[in-house]
């Protein structure tokens, strides 16, 4: 009964933990929810041309995940009261956006020209939104509050980042941030040219990880040693004459005597009925309690 209650409590605990984790950003699955409206061009006179050679407004969608995402089935709209305004067709390989990749939709109100041609334009648009395949979950939304400039795109300063502004360069289907960036390693070495910082941090982390293991294992070990010594004490008490109440508490000596008797019987030496069996603890400096030594390869000659 107590056990059942404990299991019940444990299950409740796990369920609560899962709910908490599910509510955090960290638990987000890498799916359509990772898509972002990344850059737009509303007034296109001499900027990027579509696959028909036309200048139209366009919307760039960025996959911020590290796995491919199929945008097919999602909806793009310029009207929040009509979230399913443009349904992105499914089944086309072109709708699969590679990890950290982009797709560009042309807002030319000519959906007959292909799946990337929307059924609305951006000239008078105040809002652009991307909805999930269920048509209800809003994945991302952009409110166009500033007057747009001709041939100047408006986008996130870094791909998937929070800050928006007019861009110096138009980058449809490419990284928004054109500034020269040092790699993580280069940045590290700029601050730590001799590697002393890396050594200190890394050794600290390695020591912390293994020290944590040490602390936990020291305590687990203590627990098991105490448990073993308690069990040994109990066994000892059970072997005291008059206190031996449980049959399963037979000592090693009794087992050895039975084994010896069986051996003698099987060897047909059962005539020796009054033999004294002496069991002596083997004392050796080295006890090969694990046979690993015998499994090693020979030392190199």
């Amino acid at each position, binding site marked *: 009964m107590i056990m059942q209650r404990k299991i019940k409590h444990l299950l409740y605990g796990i369920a609560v933990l899962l709910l908490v984790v599910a509510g955090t950003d960290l638990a987000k699955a890498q799916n359509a929810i990772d898509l972002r409206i990344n850059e737009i061009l509303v007034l296109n006179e001499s900027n990027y041309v579509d696959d028909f050679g036309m200048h139209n407004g366009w919307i760039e969608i960025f996959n911020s995940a590290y796995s491919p995402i199929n945008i097919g089935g999602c909806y793009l709209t310029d009207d929040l009261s009509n979230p399913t305004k443009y349904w992105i067709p499914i089944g086309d390989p072109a709708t699969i956006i590679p990890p950290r990749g982009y797709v560009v939709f042309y807002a030319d109100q000519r959906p007959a020209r292909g799946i990337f041609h929307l059924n609305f334009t951006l000239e008078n648009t105040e809002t652009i939104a991307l909805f999930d395949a269920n048509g209800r979950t809003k994945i991302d939304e952009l409110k166009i509050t500033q007057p747009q400039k001709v041939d100047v795109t408006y986008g996130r300063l870094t791909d998937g980042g929070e800050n928006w502004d007019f861009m110096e360069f138009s980058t449809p289907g490419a990284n928004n941030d054109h500034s020269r960036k040092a790699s*993580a390693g280069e940045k590290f070495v700029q601050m730590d040219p*001799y*590697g002393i910082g890396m050594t200190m941090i890394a050794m600290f982390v390695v020591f912390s990880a293994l020290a944590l293991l040490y602390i936990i294992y020291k305590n687990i070990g203590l627990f098991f040693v105490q448990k073993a010594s308690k069990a040994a004490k109990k066994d000892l008490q059970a072997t005291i004459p008059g206190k031996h109440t449980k049959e399963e508490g037979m000592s090693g000596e009794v087992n050895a005597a039975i084994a010896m008797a069986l051996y003698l019987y099987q060897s047909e030496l059962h005539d020796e009925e009054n033999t004294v069996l002496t069991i002596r603890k083997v004392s050796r400096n080295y006890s090969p309690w694990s046979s690993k*030594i015998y499994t090693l390869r020979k030392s*190199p000659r």
Partner: protein
Amino acid sequence: MGTFFDFIIEHISQFLQFTAFANMTFGHVIMICIGLVFIYLAIAKEFEPMLLIPIGFGILVGNVAFAPGFKIGVYETGSVLNYLYFGVLQGIYPPLIFLGIGAMTDFSALISNPKLILIGAAAQLGIFGAYCIALALGFSPTEAGAIAIIGGADGPTAIFLSSKLAPDLMGAIAISAYSYMALVPVIQPPIMRLLTNSKERLIRMKPPRAVSKVEKIIFAIAGMLLTTFIVPSGLPLLGMLFFGNLLKESGVTKRLADTAKGPMIDIVTILIGLTVGASTQATTFLTLKSVGIFALGAGSFIIATTGGVLFVKLLNVFLKEGRKINPLIGNSGVSAVPDSARVSQVVGLEYDKTNHLLMHAMGPNVAGVIGSAVAAGILLSFLM
């Protein structure tokens, strides 16, 4: 008739141009000699034969000079060797080897005396010492990180990290790591003797206690969770290592454990050894950088051994009499399992024929495997 003979001669000369003799360079000859030395060391001296035979033969395979364009070489897309090399390039083989290592490793020595874990951490100093030197020699940060891991004395970890940080140097790094691992019995003993006195070498350690099955199971699970929570980038290696160990210790997945530590690790060892060897084509391998990598590899092993031995001496300052650790097991903090533990045993027996250090040395030795995987994770997260 004359035209026919011209045709025959033209094709014979074309054929001759395709032979390795026509394409051979001095570099190929040098690499073939290196491959032969590896094979000799493996067979005649029994230096890590399981590794040096596949790598040595792989060097021979990789340095048969051929005319490019026939999908033959390890670097030619679509060749058989290139497909096999994919597992190295993408870091697939090392975690599989770690699975096998986990399934064949008994962590009892470590569990019974957990403070030995810390020696495995101290010996990782070799990695970061080599990182500093590599930076000073002008290697880029990612190259320095990839080269430094040689000091972890762990071939799969070295291949895994270099495939991520510096794929161009992977052949040289892998060859260097495995060469020095084979030379552990030569490199470590002089350093151990130099850093210890006769009294320290005779320290007797308490025999390890018997460890229960439950403790071993908890170790596999807690070990994975703790280390990877701190360094998630070490997950492919550490996750597989502890998973393999759980297969072994659970006692209910004997077939899986047997496969992981038997046929599977053998197959992967063959593939990784042969393809890493074959990746040392003279045209890409014989460079000044490779020479630098070999020099740094030696340096990192020396620093790692020194770090481990000196750390034990430092630890002994705080330990009571009777609980002191023999500093001759400090070298085994580098993760060349079980060679460095065997070196502790051999050197220990030189000074006391009845002082067996092997089981004690296995503790830091397996801790070194964990430590080097954690160190690789740190380098990956900082430099990539």
